[in-house]
């Protein structure tokens, strides 16, 4: 299982780096889909079957189709940046800062005591267990979510339709 995790993690990291360094946005989007699939595989290893299915359907399916759709719609042909040099110092310092922060987080987590892993509960992460929690403890947030999606839907329609002058 650890071997599987490490393989999936390696693919996730490589595809993540490729998302950032690709010049063509379509290729970035395709590598991001690969990244989402590997993360879904890791969810399966972590006994989160329902979340893995949602990850594939919502992220790799719906959200990335939306991204590809917009990329095709805008039909971006021009090279991204003219002044490559003027940003170089910013880029290096930004990348260094992000890397150092991530290493500090990992180092801190190795130093603190995270407690022992609990015994595996039967059926943990199954659709049944998730639904039971969703419709009892988290019923109100679940209902509010529908309002959020409605607001986003209306907002997206109005923004994409109106001419901002």
């Amino acid at each position: 299982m650890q071997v599987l995790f490490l393989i999936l993690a390696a693919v996730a990291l490589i595809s993540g780096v490729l998302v950032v360094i690709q010049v063509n946005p379509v290729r970035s989007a395709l590598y991001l889909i690969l990244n989402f699939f590997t993360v879904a595989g890791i969810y399966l290893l972590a006994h989160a079957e329902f979340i893995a299915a949602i990850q594939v359907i919502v992220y790799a399916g719906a959200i990335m189709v939306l991204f590809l759709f917009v990329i095709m719609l805008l039909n971006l042909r021009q090279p991204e940046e003219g002044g490559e040099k003027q940003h170089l110092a910013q880029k290096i310092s930004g990348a260094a800062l992000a890397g150092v922060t991530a290493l500090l987080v990992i180092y801190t987590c190795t130093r603190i005591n995270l407690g022992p892993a609990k015994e595996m509960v039967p059926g943990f992460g199954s659709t049944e267990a998730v639904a039971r929690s969703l419709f009892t403890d988290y019923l109100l947030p679940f209902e509010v979510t529908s309002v959020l999606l409605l607001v986003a839907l209306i907002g997206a329609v109005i923004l994409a339709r109106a001419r901002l002058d």
Partner: protein
Amino acid sequence: MVVPLIYYIALSSALFAIGVIGVLIRRNAIIIFMCIEMMLNAVNLSLVGFADHYQAIDGQMFVFFVMTVAAAEVAVGLALIVAIFRNKATVNVDELNLMKW
């Protein structure tokens, strides 16, 4: 046999850092947006890892809600990008300095 929690935290931190780097070094608004999605995904990964470690379903509930917010955010954000592109014919964030002081 079981994957240690620190592996999840390390992978999550690394993916988050890659997302941050992408936001900081790229100038294409769509790619910046994709990197934000990757950062949300990295946080979800650590939540799932913790939920598995402590066998608490609440972590997976949080992932569910984060995904909902991400979907809403993508819909609005891409609509904004389309609206901006129709006005200025660019998605390069260096040229979008209307609100810059």
